[in-house]
């Protein structure tokens, strides 16, 4: 473990990736995540075993990721919403070719060019695949500086373990904000297990092919089912959430990332006024950790979903709860950051509405 240090989120991502054995970064500038490529460029310039390329586009950078990953390297790219749209083709290929990679999306207000303020409008894009075809991407959503470090390690490990792209999503605020962080011990990439599928030149072994194309439909179907079995295992093994003050709660607010921090502040506020509120914070957005929420929804009067979007994760909440509890949505899209006061107002009025109904 490193000493506690005060570091901005984008730098935490970079440092944690390097400490997790990531030795390759390919990217293209876009606000608000530029400090991450800058960090990688400066850190890799100091060492002989790091590769940094500023590509000509997000499309090129994700394809460089494909190439580097195919050689067995631990590799990262990052961008922000419009740039992540451009990467989607490559992410679909990564999924199909079963190549590990870590993709960071420091989301901004959208759609279109949008703005650089913190937002969560890319939930569908991240959790529904984003690109073409039947595939999923593991999506991790840190809310705190320390969690950015921990989840970066987790992302790099899971990408290798499952041979699949993993996305870490934050926003401009999380990227810029400095919080105290303790880093995990560094991993020496040479100590990692050899990837028996990696392209290293067919020396003393048969040649290897990394591909996604199967012209024969039964073979392509086989690939799809293999991916689906993998996604089922991932869902089983890594779904994760924080359930905070949920044991005695009448009302639970579901939120992730920056929104979850604001929601937690709101939970404290309304609790001091006698409203029994709790926070349910998905830490994995895909797989969506819905089973605990589903099991506790029977005992809840209300679920409020708060997103910095016009309402995307709310669909997963409703699918999980299956009508066992009323679900109310509250959102602020476009980069507007709510205050804990504003959200506590929402919790109070929803819970009052319920009280009135049951009276």
């Amino acid at each position: 473990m490193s000493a506690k240090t005060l570091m901005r989120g984008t730098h935490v991502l970079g440092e944690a990736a390097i400490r997790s054995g990531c030795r390759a970064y390919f990217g293209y500038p876009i606000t608000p995540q530029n400090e991450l490529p800058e960090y990688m460029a400066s850190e890799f310039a100091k060492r002989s075993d790091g590769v940094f390329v500023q590509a000509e586009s997000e499309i090129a950078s994700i394809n460089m990721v494909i190439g580097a990953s195919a050689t067995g390297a631990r590799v990262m790219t990052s961008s922000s919403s419009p740039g992540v749209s451009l990467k989607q083709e490559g992410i679909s290929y990564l999924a199909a070719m079963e190549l590990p990679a870590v993709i960071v999306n420091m989301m901004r207000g959208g759609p279109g060019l949008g703005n650089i303020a913190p937002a969560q409008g890319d939930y569908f894009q991240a959790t529904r695949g984003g690109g073409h075809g039947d595939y999923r991407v593991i999506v991790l959503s840190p809310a705190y500086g320390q969690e950015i470090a921990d989840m970066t390690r987790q992302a790099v490990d899971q990408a290798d373990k499952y041979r699949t792209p993993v996305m870490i999503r934050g926003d401009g605020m999380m990227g810029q904000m400095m919080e105290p962080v303790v880093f995990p011990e560094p991993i020496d990439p040479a100590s990692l297990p050899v990837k028996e599928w990696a392209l290293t030149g067919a020396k003393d072994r048969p040649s290897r092919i990394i591909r996604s194309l199967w012209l024969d439909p039964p073979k392509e179907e086989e690939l799809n089912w293999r991916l689906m079995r993998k996604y089922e295992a991932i869902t089983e093994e890594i779904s994760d959430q924080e359930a905070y003050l949920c044991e005695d709660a009448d009302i639970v607010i579901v939120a992730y990332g920056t929104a979850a921090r604001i929601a937690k502040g709101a939970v404290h506020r309304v609790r001091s006024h006698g409203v029994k509120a709790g926070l349910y914070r998905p830490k994995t957005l895909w797989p969506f950790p819905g089973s605990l929420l589903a099991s506790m929804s029977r005992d809840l009067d209300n679920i409020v979903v708060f997103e910095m979007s016009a309402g995307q994760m709310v669909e997963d909440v409703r699918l999980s709860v299956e009508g066992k509890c009323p679900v109310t949505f509250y959102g602020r899209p476009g980069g507007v950051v709510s205050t804990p006061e504003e959200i506590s107002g929402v919790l109070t009025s929803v819970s009052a509405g319920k009280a009135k109904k049951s009276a």
Partner: protein
Amino acid sequence: MSLKIIFSGFGGQGVLMMGYVLAYAGMNEDKHVTFLPSYGAEVRGGTANCTVVVSDEEIASPIASSPEFVVAMNYPSMVKYQNMVKSGGTMFLNSDLITEAPSREDINLCKAPVNTLAHDMGADRSLNMVMLGIVAATTGMVSKEALLQAIEKVLQGKKQSLIDMNQKALEAGMKYVADNQ
């Protein structure tokens, strides 16, 4: 205890460093801290601000919609933030550059000629640490020792004379508060 403070001014006044040093000092005291600088298009045009939260509990939002304290190093910053300060909170004003007073009755004002104070000690550029000393002495958010350590840490790798100068400037700010109480 959870205290939020906004530091604001124009580029070159060391506004971000004030916040950074304060956050570092808070971290060294094992408090929860967040440091949120303005970024992107917001920083174009020469203004700078940052928000620091120092708290005994986990910090919800790093954004301060109604901060306990605001530091305004120039007049536009005072205008921009005067209505945000929490009722009963304190606004710190660089009186060398701000001659008018905020149009509020329910907040405390702490005026200090930090340009002059820094200049008098031969450290024009350390006006930010003078102001931070004033803030620290007034609010008690973090201890003097933690701040002195933080300055050393933040300026690590720079000349020792620069570190000494900034530490002296911080102490000068604290002394100013003691002398004017």
